[in-house]
């Protein structure tokens, strides 16, 4: 028999609902004789179906059948109107291509930052100035309108988040975006010219000198064609160090560099800090150097890449690499500075250490003294000591891989291995000397104690908390910095299965808030469905660290240059239209409730350059500018100036108007764009 449509949760409520439905039918049937009685009994029945909640907390708790744990969780997460969340979480959205900002502990979604995917509310990619940012991320001249965002990285000063910038990678196309946290807008997208697909980014060095990014699936340098038979010779891994200019708020590709590696797949990364500052660490997969080819009889990659017991942790001395680049010992490949494998070996920039096969996360402990590698296929986390790594390098007892890269002896670098459970993926830290590792297969978070100098009772599992379900990344408050806060943790679960109302077969992800306060067991507080993408990594920052603008600093502000735009109209009455041959240039303003000028008439084929300034100074007085038919929509926040350039190649009559409900006379905030047809 076919299952009826199943409401959630399945058991209890279904029985109750069907009984109520049954009663409802009975009631209606019994009262059929008089219409009045029918209405009356319906009302009575409806009231019975949805009893109003009582006035007191006790009554509500009883009626909603809440447990004491539920009540505690509610009290810890509820945010009264007008109160602000203490923390902000920046999450990737996977192939949604954007960044989410949640408030913690309420888990309210505060904003979706448009990054790689056009987003009309923010006027991102619909004709205005931000379209240039998207164009900057073109792939060999082709525009891209999506990305697979994985790992957001907040800028750091001395290994702590400074709340100024956010970086995020695009796995699918090998790109990195820069978001300015003064206006929460994407300012730059850079395409890595050496690779196509990446994963090991973004991670920043402790003072944001560099943003780390590495390939996932290797291609020949630059992504040119080469048959898979030439995998070992032509395909290459790329460990990239994007130079960040904090003053300009931009990545500087000309000052960035990369280190060539064998075509191992690089997975996650972390930058060293404290004693390990100046070093960076990447995990790798497929040191088998396998290539796909199921139809040719080769094993599937999931098998081919898991044949060896050990892969290689890559240990990179980036401080020294910087000097090597300064000394000119690099090649320009695709106009990008590349240190060749031989140079990296000669100069002692790159070492490998065996690590249990196909690991996932590599996470440096808060003091920078240990490197924690999560096993994925191995129930342990493997902890390396940075001091021991340095001793092993000094001792000089190396094996070499087939490309001549030194391999440090595993035992000499190992501090310990801690058995946590099945499928360990990522590790975060708190301020009590505990580490938290996500266990994908166990669907749990493991809390375990770090050893000395963090704790005397170290290197052992403390407890596990089930989460729902298939946890990927986890993020603790400032939990990957030099000073973790140790208050909350969010489990980013890949599957939600039965946690939410069913809305068709594509289920939301489940971000679960976990209390990790010291001296009590971890506890689950809140489920937050993510219905617009698949968050991978997230970072959680103390909200006080972010100093965002409420309105742009001055009227006429160009968010691209973060300065006043020379084409801004600063006063009402100074708007104008100029025609120069086939070009029509408009300098306009928006204010409640006018778009000035409100009539623009051009000839078919004219180039239109339209500068628009929102001259408002009131918080939240944003105006939109929509031009139907031309696929144009801008968001002009108070003080903002944008320039719109297009060719009026479609004759006709086009109303333009404000898309952001701004005032009582918002509907009247409109005008006409008239395109006279060619004769």
């Amino acid at each position, binding site marked *: 028999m076919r299952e009826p449509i199943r409401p959630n949760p399945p058991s209890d409520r279904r029985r109750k609902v069907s009984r109520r439905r049954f009663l409802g039918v009975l009631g209606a049937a019994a009262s059929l004789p008089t219409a009045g009685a029918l209405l009356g009994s319906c009302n009575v029945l409806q009231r019975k179906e949805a009893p109003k909640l009582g006035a007191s907390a006790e009554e509500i708790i009883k009626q909603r059948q809440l447990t004491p744990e539920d009540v505690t969780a509610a009290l810890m997460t509820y945010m009264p109107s007008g109160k602000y969340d203490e923390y902000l979480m920046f999450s990737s959205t996977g192939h949604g291509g954007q960044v989410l900002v949640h408030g913690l502990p309420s888990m309210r979604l505060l904003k979706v930052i448009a990054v790689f995917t056009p987003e009309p509310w923010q006027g991102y990619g619909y004709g205005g100035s931000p379209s240039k940012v998207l164009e900057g991320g073109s792939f060999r001249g082709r525009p891209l309108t999506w990305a697979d965002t994985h790992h957001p990285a907040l800028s750091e000063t001395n290994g702590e988040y400074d709340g100024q910038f956010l970086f995020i990678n695009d796995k699918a196309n090998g790109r990195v975006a820069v978001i300015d946290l003064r206006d929460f807008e994407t300012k730059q997208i850079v395409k890595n010219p050496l690779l196509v697909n990446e994963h090991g980014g973004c991670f920043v060095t402790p003072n944001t000198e560099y943003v780390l990014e590495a390939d996932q699936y290797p291609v020949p340098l630059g992504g040119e064609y080469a048959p898979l038979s030439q995998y070992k010779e032509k395909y290459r891994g790329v460990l990239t160090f994007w130079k960040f200019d904090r003053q300009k708020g931009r990545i500087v590709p000309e000052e960035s560099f990369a280190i060539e590696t064998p075509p191992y797949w690089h997975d996650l990364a972390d930058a060293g800090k404290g004693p390990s500052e100046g070093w960076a660490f990447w995990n790798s997969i497929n040191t088998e150097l396998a290539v796909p080819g199921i139809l040719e009889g080769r094993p599937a990659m999931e098998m081919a890449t898991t044949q060896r017991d050990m892969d290689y942790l890559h240990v990179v001395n980036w401080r020294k690499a910087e000097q090597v680049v300064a000394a000119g010992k690099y090649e320009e490949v695709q106009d990008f500075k590349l240190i060749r494998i031989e140079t990296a070996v000669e100069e002692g920039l790159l070492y490998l250490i065996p690590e249990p096969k196909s690991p996932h996360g590599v996470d440096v402990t808060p003091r920078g003294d240990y490197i924690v590698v999560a096993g994925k296929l191995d129930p342990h986390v493997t902890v390396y000591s940075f001091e021991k790594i340095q001793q092993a390098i000094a001792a000089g007892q190396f094996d070499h891989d087939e490309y001549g890269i030194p391999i440090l002896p595993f035992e000499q670098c190992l501090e310990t291995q801690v058995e946590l459970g099945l499928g360990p993926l990522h590790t975060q830290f708190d301020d009590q000397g505990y580490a938290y590792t996500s266990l994908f297969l166990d669907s749990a978070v493991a809390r375990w104690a770090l050893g000395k100098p963090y704790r005397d009772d170290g290197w052992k599992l403390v407890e596990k908390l089930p989460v729902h379900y298939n946890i990927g990344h986890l993020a603790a408050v400032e939990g990957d910095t030099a000073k973790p806060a140790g208050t909350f943790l969010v489990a980013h679960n890949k599957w939600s299965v039965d946690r939410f109302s069913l809305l068709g077969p594509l289920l939301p992800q489940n971000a679960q808030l976990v209390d990790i306060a010291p001296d009590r067991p971890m506890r689950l507080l809140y489920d937050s469905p993510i219905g617009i993408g698949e968050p991978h990594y997230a970072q959680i920052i103390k909200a006080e660290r972010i100093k965002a603008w409420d309105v742009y600093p001055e009227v006429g502000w160009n968010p691209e240059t973060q300065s006043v735009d020379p084409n801004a109209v600063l006063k009402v009455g100074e708007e104008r239209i100029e025609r120069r041959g086939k070009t029509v240039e408009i300098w306009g303003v928006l204010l409640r*409730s006018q778009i000035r000028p409100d009539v623009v008439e051009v000839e078919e084929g004219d180039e239109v350059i339209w500068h628009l300034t929102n*001259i408002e*100074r*009131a918080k939240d007085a944003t105006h939109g500018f929509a031009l139907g038919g031309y696929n144009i929509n801008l968001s002009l926040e108070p003080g903002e100036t944008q320039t719109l350039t297009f060719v009026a190649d479609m004759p006709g009559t086009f109303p333009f108007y404000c898309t952001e409900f701004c005032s*009582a*006379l918002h509907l*009247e905030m409109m005008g006409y764009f008239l395109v006279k047809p060619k004769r």
Partner: protein
Amino acid sequence: MERIATTSPVVTERPAEARPAIRVALSRLNDRILFALAAVALLVSLALPYWEMTLLAPQYPGGLKVAIYLGPRGLAGDVAEVNGLNHYIGMMKLEEAATFERAIAPFGIVALAAVAALAAAVRRRWTALLSVLAVLFPLIFLADLAYWLWYFGHHLDPTAALSSAIKPFTPPVLGTGRVGQFSVIARFGPGLYLAFAAALASALAIARRWQSSQRRVEVG
């Protein structure tokens, strides 16, 4: 004109208890110091707001503030926002109010302070008499403000969006009024209080100077 001296040895005073208490109190004041204080208060008032208006509405949780300075700061606060809102009811821009008065105000106040200073320096009745202007000044300011508030509320642009919804009105000089969803709270600013203090000091000083000159005349 006779020279005035408060502690002239030739004065033979009547017994204190025979004189009204207010005159006794007045006689203890120093008119020079009072005039000097008035001059200083007037100069300081240039740096402070004379009148402040706060507009409260649900969508402006912090309120909107406009302050009138008679010194170089002129109109301050959320002037653009208030103008933007006022345009819906057809009200003139705040900058267009009392342009002449605001243009001469800084010079006028400096002149008043100079007059008070002169009265402090030159102990004559005519210098005191000139200081009557300082006594009148805050009253003139308030009268002018009231006029302009009335003028603004009664000269609304009939073509404005909300012209039919708003009847002519006079915003309050002091206290609370209501326009649309806005509560308007008007307050005197510290500058105006200083001007009042200067007016009081000048009034007392003038009276004192008259008292001493009277006595001198009586005796003489």
